[in-house]
């Protein structure tokens, strides 16, 4: 496969469960990197903790497997100190938005050229199926045996409100969109958020009687629609997929370089 050269094959088969959407995301993320013909020596992947975070071990880039929630904070230092590097931060939903929520909104605000990928499976898988801030209400989890009463974040709205300049959403079913949006995000000169709904058949699907991985993927097909589609108008419950924002705004590292120029000439 064309993407083989981006993989650390000696660590496969990977640790994810059968049918986990994270593998499909890895698969199609690497295709985006391949289509852009990016130089692996200029690629850094920074991840946090959780199922999602193991992705950094499987890619043959510079890889940094950090602490729960902190991927973007580490990534900010890497990008700021060496702005020529392409920095990708795959994160889980709890990782990015519970423990890492503050870093997430501030990274959006700063608009540093980093690609954040939220692999949203609505559950803490690595620790055994506790509910997350993306689970939403009415969900069964090990910490919600009587179903959740928590409301969920809308990751794209949060990203937009926090100032991210590229925001997109798709699912593990829509693999072509994964490649397309990550490609767009990698090329976008600012902070990009790509939310990818990812099935966790082991902990989320099984407990919530959603069936196996293929069944869960079919739900992504049924329950989502393109942004602004007619289907959405007829059924407001549908989750929109697509690019929510793609705007050019001052990028942090470029602004800082400008500040250095100003000071040194000043």
């Amino acid at each position, binding site marked *: 496969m064309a993407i083989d050269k981006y993989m650390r094959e000696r660590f496969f088969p990977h640790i994810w469960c059968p049918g986990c959407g994270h593998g499909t995301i890895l698969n199609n993320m690497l295709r985006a990197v391949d289509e852009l013909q990016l130089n*692996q020596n200029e690629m850094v992947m920074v991840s946090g903790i959780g199922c999602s975070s193991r992705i950094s*071990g499987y890619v043959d880039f510079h890889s940094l497997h950090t602490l729960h929630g902190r991927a973007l904070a*580490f990534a900010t230092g890497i990008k*700021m*100190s*060496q702005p020529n590097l392409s920095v990708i931060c795959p994160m889980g939903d709890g990782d990015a938005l519970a423990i890492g929520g503050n870093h997430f909104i501030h990274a959006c605000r700063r608009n540093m050229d980093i690609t954040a990928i939220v692999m949203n499976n609505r559950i803490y898988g690595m620790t055994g199926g506790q509910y997350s801030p993306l689970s939403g209400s009415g969900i069964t989890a090990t910490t919600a045996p009587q179903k959740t009463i928590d409301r969920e974040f809308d990751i794209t709205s949060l990203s937009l409100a926090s100032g991210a300049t590229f925001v997109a959403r798709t699912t593990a079913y829509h693999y072509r969109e994964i490649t397309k949006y990550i490609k767009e995000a990698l090329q976008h000169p600012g902070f990009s958020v790509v939310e990818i709904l990812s099935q966790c058949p082991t902990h989320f699907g099984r407990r919530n009687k959603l069936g196996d991985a293929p069944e869960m993927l079919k739900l992504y097909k049924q329950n989502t629609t393109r942004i602004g589609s007619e289907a959405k108008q007829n059924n407001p419950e549908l989750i929109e997929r697509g690019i929510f924002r793609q705007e050019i705004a001052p990028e942090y590292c470029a602004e800082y370089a400008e500040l250095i120029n100003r000071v040194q000439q000043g």
Partner: protein
Amino acid sequence: MTQRTEFIQGNEVCVNAALYAGLDFFAGYPITPSSEIAETMAKQLPRIGGKFLQMEDEISSICSIIGASLTGHKVMTATSGPGFSLMQETLGFAVMAEIPCVIVDVQRGGPSTGLPTHGSQGDVYQARWGTHGDHAIIALTASNHQDLFSMTVEAFNMAETYRTPVILLMDEITGHTREPVNLPEQGEIPIIGRLRTSVPEGVDYHPYLPREDGRLPMSDFGGKHRYNVTGLYHDMWGFPTTDPNVIHGLIHHLMDKIENHAHEITRYREYYLDDAHTVLISYGCSARTALHVVNSRRRRGEKLGLLELQSLWPFPAELVRAKCAHAHYILVVEMNMGQVVHEVKKAVHEPERVYLANRVDGEFITPTDVRGIMRLIHGRGV
């Protein structure tokens, strides 16, 4: 004269010394009494093409300096007790992943928000044991601006030599007091740079395989070697492992690379110890009070001496034992409820000789406070 005298705050001395040592990346979050470090960095760094980041909290501050260290930069963050508490998890990451960095804790009264604008030395044990799990750590301190300059440079040098985070324990008194400092010219104090691997591209590079001398050459992120960095126990390529042999080897390496070099890391000053009957042991700001007492008593012919510790961790137990061998009394002067005093008691023979002179009400410990304890020791009442 090659030196330039400045009359500046300790916090500014720390910045000057960090820049002297080659720092070009700083990230921090405002907190009293350390904020002048961030403010001065924000002013100075763009002038030399360096980077200053004000992050959203102390956690992200230490995370981002670790990221920048991995790309090959000399980095530091500065904070005070509450912020240092927030940094503990990531400090452990830096220990485990062996990332050179300097963390400055300008101590204030605690616990909790405590006394933001008053001096304290209450974080000595936090520096040692704040992060979880067995680990070794280096912590340095200084009592005056000239020593603060050199200890800050040493902190960077040790971070590179041992590929480890180094904690610089300052305090509100040292941080905010102004006194003269001679800023050395480049080259006067040796600077240790990043040790980079000489392994050529295409040849297997082992980021976590120590050389014979124990040092681990690094390769910058963005360079020709792609490897993994993790806070998990890892093999010599940096990939996670649960192999008991590898884990055993790594934790011993992490401990030994520092504990076995304790004698090289130890920094101290001594005053009148040769014939001292009473040995005062102190460090940081309270060593100023101790030295004041020792000097004034010596003028009256009393046999007092001072051992000023400038490296607190690894604790220089052998040095303390040797210097206290003939002392009738040992008095530890510190601004906490007793932290270094316990280490001194563990270090010396006949620990019943060891007493504590402390002050914890936010006021700077005075010579009168120390003299009062000495009177009690000698059974003369206060």
